[in-house]
């Protein structure tokens, strides 16, 4: 299969990943039917994960792994979760991608991987204090187009 990432892009990502600190787990949820971008998304993520030994990927299916999908609040395919991996322990930071992270969102994906690897959101202390006090779930959905 032809590579989605060119050698030049792989080189750029290698440089971007140089400051990576801790391990990051990518969880991909595909679906067998009616999923136009599932195979492309899976391939893209696999090519990114190949670039750093601090990255690993698990491939799941929205239907076959319904319990896990529900646990991680994944209800769309392709669905991607970026989580922190420390030994066997996975910590969910609430980061999800619904659809293919291409175009501008490919940059977001790389930056999110770096954030999770650094285990630091970069948010202001005031923001962190406020979020700590939240008593009900907040869902932020950012609609984007790949162009």
């Amino acid at each position, binding site marked *: 299969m032809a590579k989605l990432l060119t050698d030049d892009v792989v080189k750029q990502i290698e440089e971007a990943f140089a400051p990576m600190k801790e391990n990051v787990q990518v969880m991909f949820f595909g679906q067998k039917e009616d999923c136009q971008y599932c195979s492309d998304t899976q391939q893209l993520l696999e090519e990114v994960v190949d670039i750093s030994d601090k990255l690993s990927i698990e491939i799941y299916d929205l239907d076959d792994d319904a319990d896990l999908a529900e646990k991680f609040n994944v209800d769309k395919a392709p669905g991607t979760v970026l989580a922190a991996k420390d030994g066997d322990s996975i910590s969910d930071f609430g*980061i*999800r991608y*619904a*659809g293919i*992270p291409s175009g501008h969102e490919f940059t977001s994906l790389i930056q999110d991987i770096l954030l999770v690897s650094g285990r630091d959101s970069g948010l202001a202390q005031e923001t962190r204090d406020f979020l700590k006090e939240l*008593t009900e779930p907040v*869902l*932020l*959905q*950012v609609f984007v187009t790949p162009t």
Partner: protein
Amino acid sequence: MVQAEMVEATEFQALSNKYNVSGVPQTTINDGAANITGAVPESNMIAEIKRITAK
């Protein structure tokens, strides 16, 4: 408590229509309790979340 989801609008048209996405990026909070078009600075985002969760 906080989940942030990138949604590729053209792949999930029904959801985009539900929240009347006309420009991107659009940030939709808690099933349409707030819809913000354009970039959202951290302080604005927190102000919106405060407004919604205070109800």
